[in-house]
């Protein structure tokens, strides 16, 4: 294996990799957290791009289960949870999204309005064909080992009897008349799917009349299929049928003739879910924005209800670092990292930790020294009113410990008489007052950002902790960072012999180059998604604003101003702003979280931060500490407007109090009566 190849070159390992690679690359870390996927009941698996949805849903595929058995690897789903048969549909790959690209018109009626029914019918046939396919695969591969483990019995007679019984059911409206065995049933299923595809691609004049007159109701044939296979003793009662629906968000992206059909198609799938049918359970994989607004059930006045009709597994919530703990992401990332490298370094001992390659990063003190270089005194800004002894003290401190000197410089600028006195009562005893654990911890990254800026240096991100923080709980972001670091390392090793098969230890400077490039790449790719250009302008605006405010905050009073906070009540009154922020969160560009307010009113608030991977690009700290900027909805509206971040030109509602971000501690000298708007 040529180690000049980047092991992280392939960012996505979903549908494109074969089952054998899947077994090698899949990290089972998330399985324990997502066990609901392997229990009866409908589940919506949502997450931003690259959060691992398709990998998890992949475990439901029989091919993957067989690949684990062939590789003599333990299947990651154990015991009771492993008793299932998976079948499914990838909405992008199967051709179902072509419904609508050609009108369906018959002599009697314009059937455009019937397109959702055809959509549901195609869905039924595809899934039923896949259920049979799954049972056959499990029974035939490895001499039926997995089928035996599950208690699946597919002797020819029994299987054919089940096929006859299934074909005779009313749910098909007679389409399967004359079916005598499994092969003829499969052939008929295949014919119907092919007829649809041929018509939608203009290879057939019309949809054949035997299809037009036998349209099925979404979900029912699927449940009947499960029931018949159970009744005929093919599938035991304790084996569940899980139906995968992947790439659900694609239904919101239909264009042209189909542009209005997306919501209707979603309603059709909602109808299958809303049947609350214990015979089968659905698993829907969707990006966040794909599962949000459309919960109505097709041709009814009902809507799906969370908990009753389905459960949600939010991968982003699961993986993002909680305020109180580091969460499971670091261990998950370590495992993914190790699996990626395994093929490239066959002589290394695995598992390999991220730390083995990227190290722990530099300490704040060393980072400050690196930024300060040979002129450390430039990192402090002296006030003309400061007495000479204090200035001398700061300069001397800067020479030896620039990081500590920057903290010292900020200390007397803070509020409080006691803090100001330090410039007259200079102490040499350590720890210095500005080295108090929490005060220092909260300001470490702001101080480093300011030191880098004052020295004209780019912030140097490196080491496992920085990489994990910047990944923001998103495995795609993590792999992308690794990819860019590895690229930078390979570039830097041009002309230097790389010792075969030895795991590199990549130095912090090279890591920082790769991390910056990853950050810039993620910033650029915001524009790719729907509405991305507008959002990108908004992030440019607020990212620059955060940097400016934090950089100019020489007292370091607001180390948390790399995010903003709004009252939830205020946000719910402005649909446009709420929608804009929701979109940004759903596309993964902003991260949101509820938070405890420090203000007297104790009103519920929500805070937003830029996707952590954008921090190097905007030169802002990644850590969320202390209070974010407290603003009101008018401030956000103004940012959106100033950034020209909306195609409709979101108007700024008149509000004279909102020219500056609000500071609720600040009393207003001449209160103005609020306009009713």
């Amino acid at each position, binding site marked *: 294996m040529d180690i000049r190849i980047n092991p992280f070159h392939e960012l996505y390992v979903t549908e494109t990799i074969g089952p054998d690679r899947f077994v090698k690359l899949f990290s089972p870390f998330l399985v324990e957290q997502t066990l609901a996927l392997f229990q009866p009941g409908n589940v919506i698996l949502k997450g931003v791009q690259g959060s691992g949805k398709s990998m998890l849903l992949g475990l439901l595929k029989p091919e993957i289960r067989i690949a684990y058995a062939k590789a003599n690897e333990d299947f990651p789903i154990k015991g009771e949870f492993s008793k299932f048969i998976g079948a499914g549909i990838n909405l992008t790959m199967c051709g179902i999204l072509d419904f609508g690209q050609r009108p369906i018109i018959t002599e009697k009626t314009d059937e455009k309005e019937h397109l959702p029914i055809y959509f549901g019918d195609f869905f039924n046939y595809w899934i039923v064909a896949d259920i049979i396919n799954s049972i056959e695969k499990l029974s035939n591969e490895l001499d039926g080992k997995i089928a035996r483990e599950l208690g699946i019995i597919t002797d020819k007679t029994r299987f054919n009897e089940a096929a006859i019984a299934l074909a005779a059911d009313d749910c098909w409206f007679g389409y399967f008349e004359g079916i005598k065995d499994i092969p003829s049933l499969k052939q008929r299923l295949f014919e119907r799917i092919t007829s649809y595809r041929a018509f939608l691609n203009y290879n057939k004049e019309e949809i054949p009349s035997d299809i037009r007159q036998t349209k099925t109701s979404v979900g029912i044939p699927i449940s009947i299929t499960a029931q018949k296979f159970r009744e005929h003793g093919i599938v035991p009662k304790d084996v569940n049928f899980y139906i995968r629906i992947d790439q659900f968000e694609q239904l919101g992206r239909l264009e042209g003739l189909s542009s209005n059909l997306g919501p209707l198609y979603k309603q059709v799938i909602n109808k299958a879910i809303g049947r609350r049918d214990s015979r089968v359970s659905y698993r829907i994989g969707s990006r966040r924005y794909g599962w949000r607004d459309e919960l109505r059930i097709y041709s009814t006045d009902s809507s799906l209800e969370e908990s009753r009709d389905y459960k949600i597994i939010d991968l982003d919530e699961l993986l993002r670092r909680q305020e109180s703990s580091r969460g499971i992401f670091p261990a998950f990332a370590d495992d993914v990292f190790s699996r990626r490298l395994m093929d490239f370094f066959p002589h290394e001992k695995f598992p390999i930790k991220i730390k083995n390659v990227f190290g722990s990063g*530099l300490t704040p003190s*060393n980072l400050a*020294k*690196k930024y300060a270089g040979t002129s450390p005194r430039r990192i402090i800004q002296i006030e003309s009113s400061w007495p000479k002894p204090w200035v001398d003290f700061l300069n001397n401190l800067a020479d030896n410990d620039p990081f500590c000197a920057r903290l010292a410089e900020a200390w007397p600028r803070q509020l409080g008489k006691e803090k100001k006195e330090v410039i007259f009562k200079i102490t040499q005893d350590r720890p210095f007052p500005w080295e108090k654990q929490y005060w220092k911890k909260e300001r470490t990254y702001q101080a480093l950002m300011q030191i*880098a800026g004052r020295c*004209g*240096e*780019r912030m*140097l991100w490196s080491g496992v902790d920085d990489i994990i923080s910047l990944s923001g709980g998103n495995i795609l972001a993590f792999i992308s960072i690794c990819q860019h670091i590895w690229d*930078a390392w390979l*570039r*830097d*090793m*041009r*002309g*230097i012999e790389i010792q075969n098969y030895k795991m590199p230890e990549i*130095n*912090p*400077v*090279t890591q*920082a*180059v790769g991390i*910056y*490039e990853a950050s*810039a790449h993620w910033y650029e790719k915001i524009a790719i998604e729907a509405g991305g250009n507008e959002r990108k302008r908004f992030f440019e605006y607020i990212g620059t604003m955060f940097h400016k405010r934090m950089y100019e905050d020489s007292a370091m009073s607001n180390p948390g101003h790399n995010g903003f906070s709004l009252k939830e009540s205020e946000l719910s009154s402005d649909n446009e702003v709420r929608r804009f922020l929701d979109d940004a969160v759903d596309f993964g560009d902003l991260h949101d979280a509820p938070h405890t307010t420090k203000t007297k009113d104790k009103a519920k608030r929500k805070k937003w931060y830029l996707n952590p991977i954008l921090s190097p690009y905007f030169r802002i700290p990644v850590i969320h500490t202390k209070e974010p900027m407290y603003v009101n909805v008018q401030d956000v509206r103004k940012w959106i407007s100033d950034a020209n971040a909306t195609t409709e030109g979101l108007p700024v509602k008149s509000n004279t109090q909102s020219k500056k971000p609000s500071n609720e501690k600040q009393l207003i000298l001449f209160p103005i009566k609020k306009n009713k708007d």
Partner: protein
Amino acid sequence: MTKPMNDPIEAKVNKWAPSDIGISDINLQIRYLEGKLFSEPTKGVHPDFLERLNTWLENVDSDEDKKNLFRLVPNLFFIGRDEFDTLFMAAYNGQIARWISDQIGIYFDEETPEERLKAAIANTWICPITDSMRINGFYHVNNIHSRFNERPDWLSLCKFGSVEKIEKYLKKKNIDRIVLLEDFISSGTQVSKAIKFAAELPCKIPILVVPLLICPKALESFKVLECAYKHITFSPVISLATEIFILDTSIPNEYAFAPAIRDLVVNSYNKVVGSAGPHDYEERPYGPFGFGSTGGLIVMYSNCPNNTLPIVHHSSRYWNSLFPRSTRI
């Protein structure tokens, strides 16, 4: 505490990056172009592109000048072998096919236009203007099975050929029209002689002149020729815009980095030509802005044109070129 970068280019970019936000992007662009284009040898055996790039940046002392040179690199218009093949196809399916269609009067509603076009092409003599045009490549890429074994370059013909013999050949081979191709025309001085020679053949045979790439100055002079000879048509595949040249004076819409490069080109000219003083130089490559003061940024895989900025292609005792030019290739 931390090791610096090993690679000298990476080390430079890393040093410049804090104060120059776009420089990392430029580095990535150059790396991309190096993989796709720049690694094609310009001629003979040379150090690899990245080594040449580093040596080239070291020609100048200040970081600001180095950065300006660095910024120039992704803006060089490099035409590799594949790009020329594409230009061959574009010329054949575009300029030539359209001209012949007009010549024989093919209309949209015809039932078998392809056959008439094929027959007309069979009677069209496609030749190069100079020997730098890879005419066999043109025939090969376009799968043209010609009945003419002779495809002389017309610059040689005009010097050594006989008008009578050419006329006799045209008649004997039933040639209805001529297409003259040239890969790159900068000022047109050299090729004009050949075109005039063809235009003045007594038979007044229709001629199409197709430069694959043409500079603005040459385009002007060809317009004059076109007026003088009504049976000649000029139809370039790519006409280069004035704005993509670095001229000796500023022009509207020029590249943002043009003023800095202009200064650099002028200030470093002595170094470029290897001069240690006013009367000491090895060879003067036509002036700081290249032949005819064109200020071109074109580099071809086969050679670097002489009207490209000498800082790009000229080597001397004090200057290492980025894309070395061989004279008279």
